[in-house]
């Protein structure tokens, strides 16, 4: 009896300790952020830094509010998300199609081997000159730049994922008479490769966001362009507003993607 009570007490303190540790971690994180904001606020005020070059955090909400009211913030976010979504979808779709095709067929893999070897090492941003020549400084150019970066990441992820699907599982389809390529693809290869493809997509999500900003710094309308305009007017608090906007949007997109990923892979142990 005393043993039981003692062990129950021990369990209670153990769980108390666990939740206590969590609370302390959260408290520490909050305190760290607070200190960071404080230092950021104090440094320009003490004249250690020209406030024009580094606005304190207290100046940010007002700048954000007026930008929001003028509608500029909304249209910049809408425009960026627009070509982000189109470029991502296009690049991901093509990446999955070509990755799966070369993963399934030796012939396709061999036929494309050298093309891949030549094109793959070209950094996404090195396509900017052609993007501008072909499309001009506009949304199509941005979509093109974004899609290229996404394509390679998803292509390799899909190729590798399909290639490493266990033979044993493919045999299950064969044994039940599903031997045509599209039956194999839909019943075994795609679902089995999905975890690997999703890992690639998540990487691409971040990569595409960087490409968005890069393309807009060249003048395509959106967050990046608005940020550059603000910087040329020395409206540094607006620059900070857009930097934080990018961080927040990316965080949001990534969290949404992870939630989707967890749901799609809910069959995993």
């Amino acid at each position, binding site marked *: 009896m005393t043993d039981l009570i003692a062990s129950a007490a021990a369990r209670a303190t153990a769980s108390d300790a666990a939740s206590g540790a969590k609370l302390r971690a959260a408290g520490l994180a909050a305190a760290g952020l607070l200190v960071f904001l404080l230092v950021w606020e104090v440094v320009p005020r003490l004249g250690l830094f020209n406030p024009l070059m580094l606005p304190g955090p207290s100046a940010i909400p007002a700048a954000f509010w007026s930008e929001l009211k003028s509608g500029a913030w909304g249209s910049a976010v809408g425009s960026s998300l627009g070509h982000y979504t189109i470029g991502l979808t296009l690049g991901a779709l093509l990446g999955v199609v070509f990755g799966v095709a070369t993963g399934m067929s030796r012939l396709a893999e061999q036929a494309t081997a050298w093309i891949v070897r030549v094109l793959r090492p070209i950094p996404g941003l090195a396509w900017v000159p052609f993007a501008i020549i072909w499309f001009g400084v506009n949304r199509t150019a941005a979509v093109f730049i974004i899609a290229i970066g996404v394509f390679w990441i998803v292509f390799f992820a899909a190729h590798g994922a399909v290639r490493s699907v266990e033979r044993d599982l493919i045999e299950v389809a064969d*044994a039940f008479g599903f031997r045509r390529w599209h039956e194999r693809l839909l019943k075994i290869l795609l679902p*089995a490769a*999905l975890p690997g493809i999703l890992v690639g997509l998540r990487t691409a999500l971040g990569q595409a966001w960087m490409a968005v900003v890069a393309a807009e710094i060249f003048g395509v309308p959106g967050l990046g362009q608005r940020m550059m305009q603000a910087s040329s007017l020395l409206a540094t608090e607006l620059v900070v507003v857009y930097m934080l906007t990018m961080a927040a949007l990316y965080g949001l997109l990534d969290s949404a993607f992870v939630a989707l990923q967890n749901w799609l892979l809910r069959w995993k142990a």
Partner: protein
Amino acid sequence: MESVIDIRGLSLAFERDGHRTFVLDSLDLSIERGAFIAIVGASGVGKSTLLRVLIGLAKASAGEVTLSTHSGKRQPLALVFQDARLLPWRRVVDNVSFGLEGGGLSRAERRAKALDALGIVGLVDLADRWPHQLSGGQRQRVALARALAVEPEVLLMDEPFSALDAITREGLQDELVRIWRLTGKTILFVTHDIEEAIYLADRVVVLAGAPGRLAADHLIDTPRPRTRSADGSADVVASVRRHLGAEKLIDGAAI
């Protein structure tokens, strides 16, 4: 009795390091409709390869296999693998209905048939689980249900219980005999366990040698339900062991 599978002169060679190695050599075997036949043989003798030829996962180098199936089904045979090989992204019921897809049945009809098959193996309650939430024995029963769901004329089973603990294995053996008597299917059951073969089957076929040949063929007429002591078939056990060339080893280990 009418045979449902007729194997004549079946040989199979694998190409290895540029030369051919025979795994099966001129095998002749007739499988009577409705029989429970066990194929016994040491590891590596070609038991799995034989089943793989029958189901179409491997191609024979010579000889022929004649199927005399009635139903004209797309899938007259079904195979239960040694490891359950469930598709981890499908719930149990969707694993069981796997083989029914593309057969012109509606989703609801497939699900109903899958639930029937799960009923036969006693797992209806787990229909909506994911495979990773099952024990090894449950997984193997789901694999059996998946094979039963396509209503095959012949059930091929490749050491389906060998990875399970003794208690689970004995339970599944009894269940399999019950299902066999219930459905009247022909069962070709591969095992390396002589006692298991003698407990389950009407007929025990011994595969031995390299390349594998038919070394012995015994009828087991012990009435059912059977007991697990193989006393009644001591002569068969002895003969099978002799053909497996394992007599010394097993006796030595027993002493």
